């Protein structure tokens, strides 16, 4: 049995890379820091691949089932005998898969950034934060207990904050980073309370105990507690709230489109491929609990996923900012994954949704990172985010064009590209589980194809825009990652995922359903054709359609006014109706009470002070009359006694 002890090096290398670049980055040649970051990431990638190889093909299986292996664990903080946080490495199919995803995408992004960020002032800072992010993300996926997840969950949140705010002298970037952090933090509050409840009912943080399908954790906390749901259900719903925040599920999705203010490689890494799927990953990690102990919570996951997916896809059709379209597409695709989990059962044939969801996560990471990196190339070339200012770029940027097309085909679910396989399996799982949801998802698939190709045609075909500077293909250091990811997007669909990544560790049959696949592909083609008709040539059709839709179009274009609602809640309610009154109350009421006490004392002493007038006769008068009064009192009492 291989010990896998080296896996601990993965986060450790990244951590030291972060510290080293962060502390020494300013003092050395700025490109050196990029090289150091990339090299350390390369090491990590090699380690991850090796781990994946030895886990999946050599040592991971015992009795036909992939085991959970903990090669390293150390106590970090102890609460009590039973409750303690350990820092460790947990290897199981999903964590190993995530390691591969993270290291691959991160490596590509690192290489890409060497070119992309060349001119940037904060070059060292950027690379040190990339290392920090990758460290946190790997730490998150290899967590052995839910608290370790939470620790790294927060760290990814903060590295996301730092990277979104990379251009910190732009107020919009600062606002976006702030928004991202606070929204996810709010979700994390739910996560934290969920952890607290979970730890309280099961008495442990440990994933191994929590997710043991035969263990006691599953059956605990099933008593009805609140509003007709069991404690466990509530705990899991709260945990899902955290996931929804990280993964930008409705209604906590609002931060993700704004997060596009960050540098494009960051969007590719964090806000498309890795961090945003952390929510999916966590639900998958706790899947036995969801599936066996709280099916209600799992349904909620499915419905939220489906709704978000449709909702985001609709918005994506109306946006014009390249990166925002991709952001909404990301939200939509994550909705897909959530749905996949939501319609899955635990183990056996029922576990198809889980496996499909993970598969889609894997594929999505590749093609979405590719899309973003392509978008980065485009922006790099034309210095504009708005697709209305682009067009006809296929002549100038052949590599970007081809790779972008591959990614679009992949996301649209056209065979044989990777998206087809995973999306198809999710649709199959949904079809078997819940007809209504599967109809919704068919619609989403069509919309996806439409908006992606709308983007594709507008950017690369359409009108021949006159550019101030002729756009040029990106340098090689940026082009190679594109090619690599394009290859991955094209090919990863053929991986027999069901053999490797499943809910219970044993292989799942992945039947091919013609009755699902054919309509799905048809819908996608329909979307592509529609987009081609509307956008391949410059025309006024899209404008006509949008104006004929009128208010509906406007509502969708305004993203259903969710942002406005949030701004209303935060600005008006929290700021104006809570904080300002609290501050006022503090100054005026509490503080004035204290000052009032002081003033009262002062007032009384001023009054008393005037007794001390220095007037001799006043003293004498008081003395005489006091004496008389005393005598009278004495007389009175002498008579009574």
């Amino acid at each position, binding site marked *: 049995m291989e010990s896998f002890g080296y896996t601990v090096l993965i986060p450790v290398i990244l951590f030291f890379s972060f510290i080293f670049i962060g502390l020494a980055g300013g003092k050395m040649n700025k490109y050196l820091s990029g090289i150091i970051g990339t090299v350390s990431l390369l090491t990590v990638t090699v380690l991850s691949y090796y781990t994946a190889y030895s886990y999946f093909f050599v040592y991971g299986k015992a009795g036909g089932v992939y085991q959970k292996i903990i090669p390293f664990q150390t106590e970090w903080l102890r609460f009590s005998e039973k409750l303690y946080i350990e820092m460790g490495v947990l290897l199981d199919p999903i964590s190993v898969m995530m390691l591969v995803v993270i290291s691959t995408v991160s490596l590509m992004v690192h290489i890409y950034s060497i070119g992309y960020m060349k001119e940037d002032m904060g070059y060292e800072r950027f690379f040190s934060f990339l290392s920090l992010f990758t460290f946190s993300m790997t730490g998150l996926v290899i967590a052995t207990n839910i608290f370790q997840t939470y620790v790294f969950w927060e760290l990814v949140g903060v590295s996301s904050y730092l990277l979104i705010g990379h251009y910190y002298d732009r107020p919009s970037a600062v606002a976006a980073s702030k928004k991202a952090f606070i929204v996810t933090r709010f979700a994390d509050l739910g996560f934290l309370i969920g952890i607290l409840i979970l730890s309280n009912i099961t008495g442990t943080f440990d994933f191994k105990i929590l997710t043991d399908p035969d263990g006691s954790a599953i059956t605990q906390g099933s008593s009805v507690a609140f509003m007709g749901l069991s404690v466990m259900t509530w705990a899991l719903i709260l945990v899902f709230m955290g996931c929804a925040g990280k993964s930008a599920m409705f209604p906590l999705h609002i931060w993700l489109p704004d997060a596009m203010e960050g540098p494009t490689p960051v969007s590719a890494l964090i806000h498309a491929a890795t961090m945003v799927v952390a929510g999916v990953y966590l639900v998958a990690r706790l899947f036995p609990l969801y599936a066996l102990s709280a099916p209600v919570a799992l349904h909620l996951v499915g419905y939220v996923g489906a709704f978000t997916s449709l909702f985001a896809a609709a918005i994506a059709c109306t946006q014009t900012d390249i990166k925002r379209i991709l952001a909404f597409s990301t939200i939509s695709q994550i909705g897909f994954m959530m749905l996949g989990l939501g319609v899955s059962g635990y183990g056996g044939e029922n576990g198809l949704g889980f496996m499909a969801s993970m598969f889609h996560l894997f594929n999505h990471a590749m093609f979405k990172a590719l899309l973003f990196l392509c978008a980065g190339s485009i922006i790099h070339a034309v210095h504009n985010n708005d697709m209305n200012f682009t067009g006809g770029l296929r002549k100038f940027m052949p590599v970007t064009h081809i790779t972008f097309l591959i990614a679009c085909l992949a996301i649209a679910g056209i065979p044989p590209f990777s998206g087809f396989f995973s999306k198809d399996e999710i649709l199959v799982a949904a079809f078997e589980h819940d007809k209504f949801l599967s109809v919704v998802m068919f619609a989403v698939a069509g919309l996806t194809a439409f908006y992606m190709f709308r983007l594709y045609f507008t950017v690369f075909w359409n009108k021949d825009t006159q550019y101030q500077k002729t756009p040029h293909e990106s340098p090689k250091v940026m082009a190679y990652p594109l090619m690599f990811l394009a290859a991955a997007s094209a090919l990863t669909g053929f991986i027999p995922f069901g053999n490797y990544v499943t809910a219970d560790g044993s292989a799942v049959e992945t039947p091919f359903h013609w009755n699902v696949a054919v309509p799905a592909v048809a819908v996608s083609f329909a979307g592509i054709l529609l987009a081609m008709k509307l956008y391949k040539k410059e025309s006024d059709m899209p404008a006509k359609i949008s104006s004929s839709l009128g208010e509906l179009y406007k509502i969708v274009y305004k993203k259903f006014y969710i942002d406005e609602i949030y701004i209303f809640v935060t600005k008006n309610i929290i700021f104006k109706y809570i904080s300002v009154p609290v501050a006022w109350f503090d100054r005026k009421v509490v503080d004035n009470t204290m000052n009032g006490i002081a003033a009262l004392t002062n007032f009384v002493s001023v009054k008393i*002070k005037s007794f*001390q*007038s*220095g*007037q*001799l*006769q006043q003293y*004498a*008068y008081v003395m*005489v009359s006091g004496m008389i009064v005393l005598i009278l009192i004495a007389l009175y009492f002498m008579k009574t006694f």
Partner: protein
Amino acid sequence: MIEGIGLEYFLILSTIVFFTGIYGFLTRKNLITILMSTELILNAVNINFVAFNKYLYPEKLEGQFFALFVIAIAATEVAVAIAIIISLYRRLKTIDVEKANEMKY
């Protein structure tokens, strides 16, 4: 011992004088008149001493002696008080008791 005049007569007399003195003490503004009021008070006390001596304990002389001492003390008191008044006058150019309130607060 005066025939037909009881102790009460003396006491009433001294009481009235005593309180007249106090009245003066409380109302007069000039320090010297205040001083004079105290003299009145002391005198009332003297009358009391003497009367008690004569009427209640004629075999002793304590009342008389104390009256003597009171007179002596009154003399010293006046001497010191007048010294104070004069130096006060030098400093404040007035001997109005209400204006001599530097000890206020």
